[in-house]
Structure formats: structure tokens, C-alpha cells
């Protein structure tokens, strides 16, 4: 089973590399937000440390864009093109495919986050590298949750609908997710409703603030990961 999943992860990465332009383009919006909101006073932020607020938010946004929007759209089309059905005819199992897709997205995220993080450093962001580990931990949880939701949507909706829904959710999250502006204050419940805001806050607390992540954020992102991956594993269809 392990080698089957490892092979599938490799294949997912090969396919990702083949649409490299899309992967690079996917960083366009985060990059614009980083430079626009980070370096100018175009938006109102709840702090004077603009980069310390914006860069972690942009990293969180990238994770969502890749693990959720990109994943949902690609998988939706793969399903309608029969790519998945063909894999379903092989000994690759459903959980195996979901795992491979999630892992491949994580690899992609590592590269994107490194790149955007570096851009951030170049323009003046100074992250607390000693707090990298918890930051990476919440990022894995966030990506797993997004990926689960993406795979679920891609397998119950038509590909065009998936694309529409994934884009809509992306834009909604971008506007209220506390990336360019402060997030609406919904208290702890907010973390459960707005994973992007929770993830961005966690990255700010650690990387920009050098502090620890509130338990409620761990719980919120953990819950997202468990709920959506489980739902996807149950509902996922090859065709």
C-alpha cells in the first residue's frame, strides 16, 4: 500500500509540474496582496507592523488557494475527464488517492510558501524562525482540511459548479479572512467558521509575534481537517 501511494504522489507531482504555469499564476494574487497591502497604506490594518500582519496572512492565503481552490478545480476536471475513473479501475484505493492528492498539495505548498516567505524577507519582514515548527503544524492541518473539502466538492458537484463554488469561497475568504483587512471579530467561533483567518492568526502569532498558538485555533483547524477528510473519504466518487 505504501509504495502504491508513494507512486501516486509522484504522479500527482509530475502532473502538477506539467501545469507549472498554473502553479506560478496561483501565486499572483498572494504576491499582489503581499506587495500591495504590505508595502503601501492601501488598506487599514489593526497594527503598524504592516508586513508582520500581511505576510503571514498571504502565506495562509496561498495554502488555501493551492490546497482548496486549485485542488478542487483540478480534481473536478480530472473526474469529468475520466482520469479518476481509470485510476479507480486499478488497485489504488479511495483513501490512497485522497492521501496522495493531499500529500502532493503539501509539497507544492512548501515551495510556494518558501518563495513568498522569501519575497517577504526581501521587502523587510523579519520572521521568528524559532517558531517555525508550530507554524508548520497548523499549516499541515489547514492544508489537510482544505484538501478534504476540495475533494469532497469535486466529487459531489459538476466540474463547472466546483470551479464556481471554489472560486466563490476563495473570494469570500479573501475578503473576510483577515488578510488585507482585519477579520470581523467573531470570537472563538470565528476560528471554526473562517479557517483562513484562524490559520493567518496562528502564523502571525508564531512567525511575526514569536508567541504560541491559542488552543482554540489548534482545535478549529484540527476539526476542519478531521471532518472534511473523513467526509471526502466517505463520499468520494471516481466518476
Amino acid at each position, binding site marked *: 500500500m505504501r509504495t502504491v501511494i508513494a507512486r501516486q504522489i509522484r504522479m500527482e507531482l509530475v502532473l502538477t509540474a506539467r501545469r507549472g504555469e498554473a502553479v506560478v499564476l496561483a501565486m499572483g494574487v498572494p504576491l499582489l496582496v503581499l506587495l500591495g497591502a504590505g508595502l503601501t497604506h492601501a488598506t487599514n490594518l489593526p497594527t503598524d507592523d504592516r508586513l508582520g500582519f500581511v505576510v503571514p496572512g498571504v502565506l495562509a492565503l496561498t495554502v488555501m488557494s493551492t490546497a482548496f481552490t486549485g485542488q478542487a478545480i483540478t480534481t473536478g476536471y480530472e473526474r469529468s*475527464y475520466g482520469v479518476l475513473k481509470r485510476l*479507480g*479501475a*486499478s*488497485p489504488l484505493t479511495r483513501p490512497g488517492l485522497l492521501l496522495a492528492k493531499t500529500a502532493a498539495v503539501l509539497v507544492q505548498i512548501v515551495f510556494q510558501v518558501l518563495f513568498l516567505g522569501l519575497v517577504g524577507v526581501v521587502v523587510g519582514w523579519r520572521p521568528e524562525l524559532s517558531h517555525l515548527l508550530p507554524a508548520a503544524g497548523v499549516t499541515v492541518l489547514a492544508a489537510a482540511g482544505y484538501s478534504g473539502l476540495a475533494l469532497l466538492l469535486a466529487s459531489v458537484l459538476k466540474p463547472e459548479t466546483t470551479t464556481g463554488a471554489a472560486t466563490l469561497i476563495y473570494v469570500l475568504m479573501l475578503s473576510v479572512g483577515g488578510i488585507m483587512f482585519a477579520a470581523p471579530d467573531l470570537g472563538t467561533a470565528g476560528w471554526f467558521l473562517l479557517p483562513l483567518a484562524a490559520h493567518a492568526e496562528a502564523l502571525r502569532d508564531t512567525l511575526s509575534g514569536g508567541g504560541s498558538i491559542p488552543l482554540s485555533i489548534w482545535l478549529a483547524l484540527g476539526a476542519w481537517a478531521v471532518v472534511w477528510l473523513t467526509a471526502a473519504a466517505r463520499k468520494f466518487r471516481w466518476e
Partner: protein
Amino acid sequence: MEAIEVTGLRKTYQGREAVAGIDLVVARGEIFALLGPNGAGKTTTVEILEGHRRRNGGDVRVLGEDPGTAGRSWRSRIGIVLQDADDAADLTVTEMVRHVAGFYPEPRTADEVIELVGLTAKKTSKIRTLSGGQRRRVDVALGIVGRPELLFLDEPTTGFDPEARRQFWDLIRTLAGDGTTILLTTHYLDEAEALADRLAVLAGGQIVAEGTPATLGGRAAAGAKVSWQEGDRTRTEQLADPTELLRKLVADGADLRTLTVTRPTLEDTYLTLIGARK
């Protein structure tokens, strides 16, 4: 143990019964063909046997296991060529075959299967740039790459040119010669006749006839139609056994250059069976 044992298989879609109680046994090493008009329930049946669709009722054993619950090791013992696995993947033929080969414990090599399906000249082409018939051959390659004990082929030769079809028949005979059990659906009656040890005709979700290509639907007992020319008149007789008539014609010195003796083709039998149901 039989390769496939099915009793009382049922499947409904939104309350409409697509498979209405099928019994089927396919022995190990056998080539079994499933015939039937569009919408008869062939794909539904085959995909249930492959573990791709859930059934609403009935007992199904494939290689001794229930396909609805069988695990990965069972799946690595079967090969599947789906009816509509059209795939626009951004991969070359070799990449795709090699990738899927890696899922099986003892696969054939990619080069070997690509050669077997006659795609060697196209092995470095992207699958989405292939013609329809060539893509279909990729499907077949993927179906056999894992050295399956049991191979499911749902209209495998749709889109094949006549030469490719003959090559495919040879391939199927070779596989069967090596002991592979094969369940195939087709709309080509010559294909069924050329390949199948046994066949069944499915119509409206039920099996309306089952037998060998020679005996299906009472074909062997259907007798023969003899016709010949007498002066400028064409005479035709339908007989259970034409022996006596032929002997008489020879004795009487009839003009044998115009003599034909025809028995119903598999296609005739099939059309009669399907027509009788309507």
C-alpha cells in the same frame, strides 16, 4: 471454484430497475461474452462485478470474494477495461502504463504491453493527442498490465479499425490460452462468435438466452434454408434437416452452381431473441 458466480443480481436507478435478477456463472479460463442492446444493463452488471457500483440485491462472488467489500489484493488480481474511460491526461503512453503497472505486485513491463496492443510507435506521445482507437488501446494495455487472473472488457474494440480488431482478438486468445478468465461485452456479433466459449444475451436487465455461439437461442436446432435454381425459378425450402433434400437434388441432377444452404447466423438468432422480447 468458478471465477464469477452471480445469483439474483438486481440494480435500480431512481426506482427504475436496470438489472432485474440475473444469474450467471463464468468458469475459470473461460471467455464469456455478454450481448444485448443499448441500455440492456451490460455495463451496470459488469461494473458491479468489478466493484465499481453497488448492487441493490443478489449474491455476487468474483474470484471467491464479494466485489462490494473486497480489498486491494483482490483488485490487483482483476483487470478492467471500462466502457467510457476516455482520458485526456497530460501523460505519455509509456508514463501512464508504467505508472499503473506500479500498482500491481507482478506487472508486465510497459514496453511489453504497449507492444501487445500495437502502440509501440506511439509510446512517447501524450495520451490526449492519440486517436480514439489508439486511446482505446491504452485502456486495454492498462487492463492487462497487472497480469490479471480475470479480465473485464466492456466494449473493448469500439473504435478499432478492422486490423486492430483482429490483433485484439489474437491478444485475447493468447491471454485466454495462458489461463486468464475473460468477461467481455460487445455489440459485434462476429467478435462474440470468434472469441466466446459461452455467451448470454441481456435485454431489459434480464438474461433472455445463454449458450455457446453454436447453440444460442436454439440456433443449432433451427435447421437450414436451402435454395437453388430450377430453370429461371428460385426454389427455397426451410428444413430441420436438409440431408434428404440435398441427396435428392444431387440424384435429380439439379443445377448445383446456384445451390445455397444457410443456417441462421449468430446475428439472426440475436435479432430474433431481442425482437421476441419487444
